[in-house]
Each structure stands twice: as structure tokens, then as C-alpha cells.
């Protein structure tokens, strides 16, 4: 099989290394038939279904009862997985109106989520009021909710009463010593609790909540925020425990910088799909129609939901039939749990390999162009170049070694770390690069290249690859760098 796979570590933890992507066809691997049947038409989990169905989120529950070190409250939280953006806060009535308006206009809309900012279960009245109304008015919409878990055990009973399709718990650790580094405090039984004790309570509540939900037959997904140096190693343990307790999916999300997501806009469907919990995001994947549904426009709409439900049911039947036909055709056995960033036609082994081996190149990019100074790059996009063209395969975080002028402080060790982060890449494309990093990169077996500044990424990557091919550099495996 010739899959463009990125798996930073062996995926022995069952999806723990699955990067930030919340969904791929392969996520279904290892699921029981019963769960597979329940999630296969779900736009958040099924690669197939998300081309046909859509989900939306509303922000109705702003308050939060814990503090995460990575959250500054001015922006949405990781519960919501869109760092750096503020959502429009709605009252339950407004949220219901908006959901009905969207569902009537976009019949593909099948899932409504309540996520951050805030913890939906720290504001149970607002959350449940929204669910109550929707369950009554739009029984054909699946409901889901994301929570930090602290108040989960108290709310399982109530959750089970509604049309709740699944619950997402953000679990960053199962060890209070790790937790003490992630959560400075929690608000618990009318008091603020700090440090290890806080983490202990939170972890106990999360695990208890998980067990209670599973016992009630409610699907549970676990999200973890990967914090380098704090819980990266530990997440394997988290994965093992939550799966053993019956979570059907463990999704690891690194905190992705906003500029990377901007850089990916347009050509990076998979990356957009990863942001599965965007509040306000409406519509099919890659087709956000939030602007059509601002509160003032919704107030002016006249919605006949009864009529809409018929249309919705017809569409669902049609799509389900289509998907079923597709699955019959494919009847593929579950693939191993790896992240597939780009679907690509397989080639059989017999086919002659195209001339020139694959080369990984890191690109300091902005807005789809090779446009960032090496020293200013916060992240590098990694492309795999081959005779098939340039494919995006992932990203690597850089530590900016140069925040201002060329002579700033402890630049060197940071540069070393950046070079380490680029391991496996043979070329780094950037708009400009300083003399010193140039030398260090070459010494590490990575060829710096500033000749394609302001060119579109894929063209630049392929130009460099073709030069390497012409120079006869692509015949053998590279010696210094190991290819992923």
C-alpha cells in the first residue's frame, strides 16, 4: 500500500498518535460493528459521511469551572478546538432558532454540538434548555456535547433523557502529578482547589463520568490536548485507559497556531476537517456558511420546520442508500489506525515505480506561498515531493530563534531544536535565511533554499524536486536523513 501516512510515533496506542485529525475512514478501524453502525453516518467521524452531512455548533454556555494553563479565556477554549477565535454567545432560545434555521436551509445538517467556550455542564441550565427545546422541535437532529468532565457525573442522568448522540470529554491526563502541571485550579463544591488535589478530583470525576456514560449506552469520545513536554508521553497511558473503559475514539489535538490554519486555507481539506468542534461553523466541510445565519438574519426568517423535516428525511434516505452502495462496493477490511491526510489512488506493487524517490521538504509558508523568513517561521508545512507531485503530509512546530534582530540572545540552542524538528526533511524552503542557520542546516543534511520566495508552495516544491532529479540526487536513499 502506498499511503501518504504521517505517524510521528508507532501508533501502538491506538490512535494516540493520530495527530490533530478528528476523522478519517481509518478511524473506524478496531470499532465494534455496533459502534461502527452508529457513527458511520456521522459527519464528525465518517470520512464518507462528512461529504454528505454537516454539523454545527452553538455557543450557549460561556462559564467554565476549571482553569487550563493553555487557556486565557479571552478566546475560545480547546474544548472547542479553535484557538484564538471568539464565538458569538447565544441564549438557548437564540441557539434553538439558529439551529432550526440552519437545519431548514441546509437539510444535510444532522448534528448539533454544544461545546466551548466554557463548559456546557458548568452551565447545565443553558445547555439542557437548548437540548430540551431541540429534542421537542427537531427530533431528527442528533445532539452532542463536549465537556471537561468535572460536573459530568452529576449530569449523566439528565444527558440520558435527551437525544444525546455522543459526549466528548477532554481528558489530558490520568495522573494527578501530570494534571497538576496542566490545571492550576478547579472550582469544586463552592471552593477553589489548587494543584495536585484539584487534578485528583478532576481526573476522578472524568473517569467516573466516562464509566457512567458507557454504562448508559451513550457514545463517548475522548479529546486530549497534546502539550509538548507535559503530557505527550503520558497520552499513551490515557489512550489505553479510556479505550479500556469504553470510549469509542481517542482524538489527540495539538494546539495548532492560527497562522498555520490560515496558511492551509484553501488547499487543505483535511486540516479543516480536523477542526471538528468549531463553534459557529456551519455547513459541509470547507463550506462555512456562518455569515448567512447571523442572529438578525435568523430573526427575519420564517421557518416551517415540519415541511423542512420531510425534505430532510428524503435527503437522508437518499444519502444513506448511496453510502450503503459505496460501502458494499468497497467492503474493505478495517485499515490500521493511521492518519491519512490525503486520499490518493493506490498503486499495485507490480507497477513500475516512477523515477526519483520521494523527498520530504519543509516550507516556511504563509497564504499558500513560500513567504516566511526561516528565522521567523513558527511552523513548517511538510510536503512530500515525488513524480506524483507535491503532497502535504503534516506540519512541524518551530521555535522562533529570532524574534527581532539577528543577534538576539540564546538563539543558538533554539536553532538547534528547530533543526531537530525538521528531521527527515531534506530541503527547507523559505523566503530568506540567515548565514548561520544556513551553515547549521547544511551540516544537518538539510538543504536550505531561498530561491523560490513568494512562489506557490507546490510549484516551488516540485521545482526543487525536479532540480534534484536532474542533478541525479534522487537515485539512492538519503544517508543522513531518514524518510518518514
Amino acid at each position: 500500500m502506498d499511503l501518504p501516512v504521517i505517524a510521528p510515533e508507532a501508533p501502538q496506542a491506538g490512535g494516540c498518535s493520530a495527530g490533530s485529525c478528528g476523522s478519517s475512514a481509518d478511524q473506524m478501524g478496531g470499532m465494534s460493528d455496533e459502534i461502527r453502525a452508529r457513527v458511520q453516518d456521522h459527519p464528525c467521524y465518517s470520512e464518507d459521511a462528512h461529504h454528505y452531512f454537516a454539523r454545527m455548533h452553538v455557543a450557549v454556555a460561556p462559564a467554565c469551572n476549571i482553569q487550563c494553563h493553555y487557556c486565557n479565556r479571552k478566546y475560545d477554549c480547546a474544548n472547542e478546538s479553535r484557538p484564538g477565535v471568539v464565538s458569538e454567545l447565544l441564549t438557548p432560545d437564540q441557539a434553538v432558532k439558529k439551529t432550526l434555521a440552519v437545519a431548514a436551509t441546509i437539510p444535510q445538517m444532522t448534528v448539533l454540538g454544544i461545546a466551548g467556550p466554557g463548559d456546557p455542564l458548568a452551565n447545565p441550565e443553558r445547555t439542557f434548555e437548548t437540548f430540551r427545546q431541540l429534542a421537542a422541535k427537531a427530533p431528527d437532529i442528533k445532539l452532542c456535547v463536549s465537556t471537561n468532565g468535572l460536573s459530568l457525573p452529576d449530569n449523566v442522568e439528565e444527558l440520558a433523557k435527551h437525544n444525546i448522540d455522543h459526549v466528548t470529554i477532554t481528558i489530558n491526563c490520568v495522573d494527578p502529578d501530570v494534571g497538576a502541571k496542566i490545571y492550576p485550579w478547579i472550582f469544586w463544591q463552592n471552593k477553589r482547589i489548587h494543584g495536585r488535589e484539584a487534578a485528583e478530583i478532576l481526573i476522578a470525576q472524568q473517569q467516573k463520568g466516562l464509566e457512567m456514560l458507557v454504562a448508559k449506552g451513550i457514545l463517548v469520545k475522548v479529546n486530549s490536548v497534546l502539550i509538548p513536554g507535559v503530557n505527550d508521553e503520558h497520552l499513551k497511558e490515557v489512550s489505553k485507559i479510556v479505550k479500556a473503559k469504553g470510549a469509542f475514539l481517542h482524538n489527540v489535538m495539538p494546539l495548532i497556531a492560527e497562522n498555520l490554519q490560515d496558511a492551509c486555507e484553501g488547499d487543505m481539506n483535511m486540516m479543516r476537517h480536523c477542526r471538528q468542534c468549531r463553534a459557529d461553523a456551519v455547513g459541509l466541510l470547507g463550506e462555512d456558511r456562518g455569515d448567512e445565519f447571523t442572529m438578525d438574519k435568523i430573526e427575519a426568517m420564517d421557518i416551517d420546520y415540519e415541511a423542512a423535516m420531510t425534505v430532510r428525511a428524503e435527503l437522508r434516505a437518499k444519502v444513506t442508500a448511496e453510502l450503503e452502495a459505496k460501502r458494499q462496493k468497497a467492503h474493505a477490511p478495517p485499515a490500521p489506525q493511521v492518519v491519512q491526510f490525503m486520499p490518493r489512488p493506490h498503486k499495485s506493487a507490480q507497477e513500475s515505480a516512477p523515477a526519483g524517490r520521494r523527498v520530504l521538504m519543509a516550507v516556511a509558508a504563509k497564504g499558500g506561498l513560500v513567504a516566511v523568513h526561516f528565522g521567523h517561521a513558527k511552523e513548517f508545512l511538510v510536503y512530500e515531493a515525488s513524480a506524483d507531485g507535491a503532497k502535504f503530509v503534516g506540519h512541524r512546530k518551530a521555535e522562533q530563534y529570532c524574534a527581532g534582530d539577528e543577534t538576539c540572545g540564546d538563539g543558538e540552542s533554539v536553532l538547534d531544536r528547530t533543526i531537530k524538528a525538521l528531521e527527515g526533511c531534506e530541503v527547507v524552503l523559505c523566503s530568506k535565511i540567515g548565514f548561520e542557520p544556513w551553515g547549521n542546516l547544511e551540516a544537518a543534511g538539510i538543504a536550505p533554499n531561498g530561491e523560490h520566495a513568494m512562489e506557490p508552495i507546490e510549484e516551488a516544491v516540485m521545482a526543487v524536486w525536479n532540480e534534484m532529479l536532474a542533478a541525479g540526487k534522487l537515485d539512492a536513499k538519503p544517508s543522513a536523513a531518514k524518510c518518514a
Partner: protein
Amino acid sequence: MALEIIESCVNCWACAPLCPNKAIYEAAPHFLIDADKCTECVGDFADAQCVAICPIEGAILDELGTEMNPPGSLTGIPPERWAAAQAEIMAR
């Protein structure tokens, strides 16, 4: 006897639903406490609820202007170290 929310409030909503006296209300540019209603939670809770959940050091003051969550009490970063880090960032 009443507490006061000042401009460092980030409008996170955490405090408002907890107040036993419904003394906290949304306002621009930030949440406010109705001094006539606030009892500092005496008789209801051992700790003032807004103070116990507010994530921002210094956002809530008592009548004497004392910060209920003083610097370092929530982040765990001592004020001197915070000041030094700030100065370092500014110098760049």
C-alpha cells in the same frame, strides 16, 4: 459590604451564575457587581463565590481596594518572576 469587579475582568461569565444574590450583571466594558445586593456571600458560602471562580488575578476588589485574588495566587507564578519575564519580553 460589597465586592467590586474592575477593568481587568475578561468577561468570561464564570462568576455571574454563582452569585447567591444575583448581584453580578453583564455590562460594558465588563461585568459589574451591584453593591446593594452583594453580601460577600456571608451566610451562604464560606468563600465569596465570584472570587473563588474568577480566573483573573486582581479583577475583584473588596471595599478597601484589596485584590481578592492577589498576584501569583492563581497562576502560581510569583509576582517578581512575572515582572522579570514581562520586562524581558518588552526588551526584545
